[in-house]
């Protein structure tokens, strides 16, 4: 059964831009801790790929890797990625309403103050360089609470989420994984994400690199620009592969053990309450027909 493996790339964008490096400013996670991934939450993650093969040597599992770039100190990824644009539209609508109200006012005592209020509502709209046109262009700068930022010099703004632009290196060169960028209807990933299938037949540890694009807000004259900054970081896959084993027999396939009482002579001993379900009942397991046979892991 295809197992989806997720690798989260969490970037401290502010520090990374300051240092012009992802070293010590990127934290990696995956969901393969159970299979022996090392370095969760650090910059030195080694992702365990647990392969399996059938008796004839053919690959028995399909592993699919997905990369999810997130940002520390930005809007959380659960906020829809189009949020900056949406907030921009909302703030424009509000400004237009206020303009209408202002022109309708018969006795505008302090038009300058009123206009200033409108200017605050409008905020700073970002231009982009040609390379990133489309993605961030026309968005407004918003802060960590989703409010429109009017004074970008205070540095309270939220950085755009990091973007993976390439995955390459040893694991790709040696054809251990086949990464590519895919489109997706899932807005959490902005409609694009990097994914790879893995050849788990060649055990070993293979490094790979990610090229990650961050954006620095620069003021050019009266314009604010998100300037792309390309940085790289490294990680690794550790591939293991073991043979599939039949769950019932421990070796090859046999008859299903349908009859728990194989012979009348042995029958008696099977009626004894089995010691194989020891654990004390867990709280909250009163539901009929369902018991938790937990604690086994702990007792080992």
């Amino acid at each position, binding site marked *: 059964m295809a197992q989806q493996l*997720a690798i*989260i790339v*969490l970037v*401290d964008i*502010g*520090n990374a*831009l*300051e240092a012009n490096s992802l070293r010590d400013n990127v*934290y990696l*996670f995956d*969901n393969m*801790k159970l299979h022996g991934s090392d370095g*969760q*939450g*650090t910059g030195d993650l080694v992702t365990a790929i647990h392969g399996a093969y059938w008796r004839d040597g053919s690959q028995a599992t399909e592993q699919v890797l997905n990369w*999810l770039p*997130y940002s*520390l*100190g*930005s*809007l*959380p*990824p*659960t*906020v*829809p990625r189009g*949020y900056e644009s*949406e*907030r921009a539209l*909302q703030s424009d609508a509000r400004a237009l309403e206020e303009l209408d109200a202002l022109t309708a006012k018969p006795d505008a005592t302090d038009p300058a103050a009123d206009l200033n209020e409108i200017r605050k509502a409008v905020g700073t709209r970002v231009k982009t360089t040609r390379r990133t046109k489309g993605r961030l262009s026309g968005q407004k700068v918003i*802060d*960590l*609470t*989703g*409010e429109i930022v009017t*004074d970008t*010099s*205070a*540095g*309270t703004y939220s950085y755009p989420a990091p973007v993976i632009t390439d995955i390459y290196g040893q694991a790709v060169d040696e054809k251990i994984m086949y990464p590519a960028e895919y489109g997706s209807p899932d807005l*959490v990933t902005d409609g694009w994400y990097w994914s790879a299938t893995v050849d788990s037949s060649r055990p070993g540890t293979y490094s790979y690199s990610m090229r990650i694009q961050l954006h620095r*807000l620069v003021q050019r004259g009266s314009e604010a620009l998100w300037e792309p900054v390309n940085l790289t970081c490294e990680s690794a896959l550790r591939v293991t592969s073991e043979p599939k084993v039949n769950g019932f027999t421990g070796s090859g396939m046999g008859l299903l053990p349908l009859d728990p009482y194989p012979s009348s002579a042995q029958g008696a001993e099977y009626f004894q309450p089995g010691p194989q379900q020891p654990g004390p009942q867990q709280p909250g397991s009163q539901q009929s027909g369902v018991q938790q046979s937990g604690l086994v892991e702990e007792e080992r």
Partner: protein
Amino acid sequence: MTSETDNGGARRPIAITAVVDCVGALATGTVHGNLYFYDTNKAGGSQGFGTEQLRTRVRSGDQVLWSVLALECEAYTAIDGIDIDHELCEPERRVYPGTDVAYWIGTVKKDIPGDTYYQVRFRLGSRDEPIVTTLSPSLVG
């Protein structure tokens, strides 16, 4: 862009992110071993990145913003409450305008000498009771 601007203008809020392995926490009944804290004030002297005992360096007047990130993007994970000395900070829950995504925000009321420890309560999946941090992160003066 430095966060140490003291020109009377708004300072960049310090964002604290709790990364939660939701499935791990539900399977074990504890966030211990399934929780990683980070903040955006490493340059200011915060320590313990990626652990359950993050020490976030703060000064009087700093805004602190807590949010949560689930390792499994489909898993519901939220902060249910932050138990901290209200003499120092009173975090309150807010949502991003137009969404149901929440964050907690509070202002540091005074400079403090050492560590002020606090607990975070998490809502995970559809589990009824929240799970509270086992080890405590802190704000450090």
